[in-house]
């Protein structure tokens, strides 16, 4: 079954965020991984790039389909998980661990406050 850790925040687009110092680490949820199937390519922004909430900032190619990654908050990319370039399967294996994607330092604190708590996300998934 899909699991959604309690210490994370979530978006409607099935991304999770975890506080990492002044930045937030971003990945996709188990629900998203289950929907996508085996992931074969992850295209991410570069360190230092500015991203805008709701704008496409990367893509995920699975065996069956291509999906956009939308920035969960606006801010600057402070870290990128470079290991996904050669080992995208980490997203399938450990979506909340080694399968993380980027870290973003938010510029709009209000956007962080709007992220969903785990129970709200579970309800969101149940409604899918």
């Amino acid at each position, binding site marked *: 079954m899909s699991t959604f850790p309690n210490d994370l925040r979530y978006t409607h687009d099935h991304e999770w965020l975890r506080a990492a110092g002044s930045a937030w680490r971003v990945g996709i949820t188990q629900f998203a991984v289950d929907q996508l199937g085996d992931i074969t*390519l992850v295209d991410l922004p570069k360190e230092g790039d500015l991203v805008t909430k709701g704008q496409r900032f990367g893509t995920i190619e699975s*065996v069956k389909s291509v999906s956009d990654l939308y920035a969960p908050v606006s801010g600057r990319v402070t870290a990128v998980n470079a290991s996904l370039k050669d080992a995208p399967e980490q997203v399938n294996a450990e979506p909340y661990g080694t399968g993380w994607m980027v870290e973003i330092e938010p510029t709009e604190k209000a956007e962080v406050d709007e992220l969903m708590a785990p129970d709200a996300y579970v309800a969101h998934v149940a409604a899918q």
Partner: protein
Amino acid sequence: MERKRTPLWELHKQHGARLIDFGGWDMPVAYASGTIKEHKAVREAVGLFDVSHMGEAYLRGPRVREAIELLTTNAVASAPPGKAVYTLLCRPSGGVVDDCIFYKVSDTEFFVIVNASNTAKDLEWFREHTHSLCDIEDVSDATALIAVQGPKAVALVDRLAGGALAGLTSFMFANATVAGVACIAARTGYTGEDGFELACANDDAPKLWTALVEAGGLPIGLGARDTLRLESKLPLYGNDLDDDHTPLEAGLGWAVKLDRTFLGVEALRAQKQQGLTRQLAGFRIADDQRAIARHGYAVVDRARGTGGEAVIGTVTSGGPGISVGGAIGLAYVPVAQAAAGTQLTIDCRGKDIPATVVSGKFYKRT
């Protein structure tokens, strides 16, 4: 609308399948192990596919051969009994109604397996064009179909058939008892590997499937079915074949016998005489491009202009080459761009990606 279920649906659920809507059927796209592992299992060992959603029918009667002659582009009617033949069904325009496999039981009886999404259309096509020539019995709703594919498939099925099936050669079929279940067993498949496709009664399908799993077959979803068939350059109706393209354009001339008379032959003869203008070409995208060209993406030549003016072709199928590396696909392109080695440019979601035309199958079993 409620999705249709094959007789193996409960077993798929128990096996951890992720089910999707496939042409109105609730079908496994992958099981717990995932598409990549499933793909490799078929290339290296043996996989099991539930393809019970496909349509099956019998065509019978003293004049059935005349009906078959009319319907099929390949030499089906004249085949020896016990032979399965891949063929196209064409419209008078030369466009493709469907691709399918006919089994010649005898001069008065043929069995046919058609694509799931085309079953109703095909049966209607048969009735419309052969009404007085044969009886048509649609057995789709009573028939299950299980494909057993991979280098270990023949030995596995043969063992469960008491040694009766290893001697059956490629594209031959026979009645057989596999794991105690009465089947039509054909040495055919849709993966590029050796193996069998086993047709049996719905009620017997769970018993047969369970025996095949216990004997070592790994259940494989539709996701890997697609990556496997693409590597072997086997066309998929609705992607690579349709009403608007002919079998000659699709590179299936080997299954079109132009010296025969059948629906569409005149259009196809004329097309052959005039020469093709476009052709289905296989292409490969290098690993370092980190891109996959998928169904519907445009093949472009930017020197020809901007926007739509640049479009010279369309990708019909595409995906990762799990056994061959990089990304692979098929596209209809002008004949001048279809030769091996030609560099194509594919618009992958707004990004121009280079691809190279390759001839033949992407994957060939050794």
